[in-house]
C-alpha cells in the first residue's frame, strides 16, 4: 500500500539516467586512478652510476659570462637559496684540481705514445654509486683511480681511432691499462700511476677520489680556491615538477636527460588530474541530479507524506521507500564500473608488460569503489532522510 501510494515517484528514465551517468563517472575515475598507480613507479625510476636522485647543475655560459669566470661560479647566496628549496635534499660542490696535471704513456706495441694535459675534479663519495674496491686512494701508494665519462671512450673508439686507423678499446681493456701521471705545482713535481676504474654517463668530468684531491690541492696548489662552477644536487623526488621550473627560472643548466622524466611525469600528472577532475564532476553531478529529483518528488508528495505521518508512519519508513531504489542503483552502477575497470586493466597490463614490468595490483580499484559506495550512499541517504523528516514535521 505504501508502495502504491508513493510509486510513480521516480520515473524509470530518471533512475536509468542516474545509473548510467554514475557508471561512466566512476569508470573514468577508477581507470585513471589505476593507470596512475600502475605507471607511476615506472616513471619515477631512475638508474645511473651516480647516486640516485642526484644531478649536476651549472650556470648557462653566455658570451658576456665567458669574459668573467666569476659569473659562471655559484655565489654563497645562490647556493644557500638552492639549499633552501624544499625539493633539494642536499648539495655538494665539485672540487677542481688547482695544479698542473699531465698524463702520458710510453710507447708500446699496441698503444701509441701519448701525452696530454689533464685536469681533475672530485665530488664527495656519498654522491657516487661506485662499489669497486679500486675507488680508494692510499696516501702511501702512488696509484690514483680515475672515472671518465663514457662519451670520451666513444669519442676515441668511433671518431679518433676510426679516422687515425688506431685500435678500438673496450671498457674492460682500458680498465686494465695503467698510465703515468705527472702532477706539478708549488715547485714540486711527482709521478703517479693512474687507471680508469669506472665510466659515468652523468657527468662530463675526470673524477678522482675526493680525499686525494683535497690533499693534492694543498700540496701542489699555487692559487686561491675558486668558486664552484658546478654543483651536485640531490633531490627528494626527481619527478617533482618544481625542479624544472626552478632551474628554468634561475637560468641554471641541468642535464636534460635528468629532467626528461620529471617533465614526462609532470604532464602525466597533469593529464591524470584533468581526468580525475572530470570524473569527479560527473559523479558529483549525477548525485546532485538524483537528489534534486527526489527532493522535487518529496515536495510534490508532501501532503501524502504528512498524512502518513499523521496516521502513525515513522519518517524512516517513508524515507526507506525512496532510499532503496537509488541505493541499489548506485551499488549496481559502481560494482559494474569496478568490474569493467578491472577487465580493462587486465588488457592494458598485458599490453604494458611487453615494454616493462608491472608490479602493482588492482586493489586500489576495489578500495576506491568501496569508498565511493560508502560516500555516495551516505550522502544520498542522509539527504533523503533529512528531507522526509522535515516534511513529516518530525524533525
Amino acid at each position, binding site marked *: *500500500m*505504501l508502495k*502504491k*501510494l508513493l510509486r510513480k515517484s521516480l520515473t524509470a528514465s530518471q533512475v536509468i539516467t542516474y545509473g548510467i551517468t554514475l557508471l561512466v563517472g566512476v569508470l573514468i575515475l577508477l581507470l585513471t586512478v589505476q593507470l596512475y598507480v600502475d605507471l607511476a613507479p615506472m616513471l619515477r625510476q631512475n638508474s645511473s652510476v651516480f647516486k640516485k636522485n642526484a644531478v649536476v647543475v651549472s650556470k648557462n655560459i653566455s658570451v658576456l659570462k665567458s669574459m668573467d669566470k666569476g659569473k659562471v661560479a655559484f655565489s654563497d647566496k645562490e647556493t644557500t637559496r638552492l639549499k633552501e628549496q624544499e625539493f633539494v635534499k642536499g648539495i655538494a660542490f665539485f672540487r677542481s684540481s688547482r695544479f698542473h696535471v699531465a698524463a702520458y704513456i710510453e710507447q708500446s706495441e699496441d698503444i701509441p705514445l701519448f701525452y696530454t694535459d689533464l685536469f681533475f675534479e672530485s665530488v664527495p663519495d656519498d654522491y657516487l654509486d661506485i662499489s669497486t674496491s679500486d675507488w680508494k686512494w692510499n696516501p702511501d701508494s702512488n696509484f690514483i683511480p680515475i672515472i671518465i665519462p663514457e662519451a670520451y671512450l666513444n669519442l676515441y673508439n668511433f671518431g679518433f681511432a676510426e679516422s687515425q686507423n688506431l685500435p678500438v678499446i673496450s671498457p674492460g681493456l682500458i680498465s686494465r691499462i695503467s698510465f703515468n701521471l705527472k702532477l706539478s705545482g708549488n715547485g714540486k713535481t711527482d709521478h703517479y700511476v693512474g687507471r680508469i676504474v669506472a665510466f659515468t654517463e652523468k657527468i662530463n668530468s675526470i673524477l678522482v677520489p675526493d680525499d686525494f684531491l683535497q690533499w693534492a690541492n694543498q700540496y701542489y696548489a699555487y692559487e686561491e680556491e675558486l668558486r664552484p662552477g658546478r654543483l651536485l644536487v640531490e633531490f627528494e623526488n626527481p619527478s617533482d615538477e618544481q625542479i624544472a621550473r626552478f632551474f628554468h627560472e634561475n637560468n641554471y643548466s641541468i642535464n636534460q636527460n635528468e629532467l626528461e622524466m620529471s617533465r614526462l611525469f609532470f604532464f602525466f600528472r597533469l593529464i591524470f588530474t584533468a581526468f580525475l577532475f572530470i570524473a569527479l564532476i560527473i559523479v558529483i553531478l549525477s548525485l546532485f541530479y538524483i537528489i534534486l529529483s527526489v527532493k522535487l518528488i518529496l515536495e510534490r508528495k508532501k501532503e*501524502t507524506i504528512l*498524512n*502518513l*505521518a*499523521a*496516521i*502513525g*508512519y*515513522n519518517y524512516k519508513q517513508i524515507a526507506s521507500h525512496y532510499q532503496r531504489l537509488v541505493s541499489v542503483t548506485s551499488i549496481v552502477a559502481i560494482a559494474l564500473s569496478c568490474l569493467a575497470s578491472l577487465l580493462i586493466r587486465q588488457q592494458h597490463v598485458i599490453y604494458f608488460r611487453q615494454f616493462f614490468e608491472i608490479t602493482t595490483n588492482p586493489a586500489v580499484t576495489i578500495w576506491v569503489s568501496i569508498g565511493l559506495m560508502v560516500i555516495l550512499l551516505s550522502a544520498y541517504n542522509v539527504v533523503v532522510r533529512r528531507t522526509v523528516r522535515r516534511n513529516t*514535521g*518530525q524533525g
Partner: protein
Amino acid sequence: MQIRIQQLKPNYMSEEEVLPSDIYLKESVVFEPGAFYLIHAASGKGKSSLLNFLYGLSFQYDGSVRIDNAEPNPSLRLSRLSYVFQDLRLFPELTVMENILLKNQLTGYKTIGEIESLLDEFGLLYKCAAPLSTLSLGQRQRVAIIRALCQPFNFLLLDEPFSHLDPANIEIAVNMLAREIKKQDAGLILTSLERENYFEEMSVLEL
C-alpha cells in the same frame, strides 16, 4: 493514561481572542483515563487545534500538554492515541480497504474479517474495493472512523466526526464507537458544534 493541560493557549491567537474557557488559559485541566468528554464550541474557537496539540501534530501553543507526564510525541500514535481528523486525511488514490489496511498494517490490530464486518455495519462493504475518490464525504467520514478503530488506544480523539452523517448513521457510529471504546477500556474526547450528549456520562467542556 492521563492527559493534563496547563495554561494552554494557541500562540497564534491573542489573549482577547482566547476568552477564558473550560480549557484554554485554565490553570489545569485533566482528562481522566476512561472518561468521555464533549468539547463544545462555535466554529473558529480552536477545537481542532486543541486535539492537534494533544496528538502531537502541532506545537504552536503556550502552556503545557502532558500525557502521562511526557510531551506528546509521534510514537503515541500507534498504541495510545487514535484520532479521527476533521479533514479525514484519507488517501484518495487508494481503495476503501487499502486506506484502512494502511493503518492496520502498522498495528496488526484487526483482521480483514473484522474490518469487513465494521464496513458492513456502516453499509459500506460493497464499496470495499472502490477507490476512495468515488465516495461521498459522509461515506469517507465513516471510513475514517473505521480506520481510527484499527489500533489499540487509551484515548480516542474525534474532531466533529458526525458532521456529514444523517441521524441513522450517527446512531450506528455511536454504537460502534461505544462498543470499541469499551472493549479497550479507553477514554474519548469529542469536539462538536452542537451541545449534544452522544454518549452516556459525557462531561461537557465549553471552549
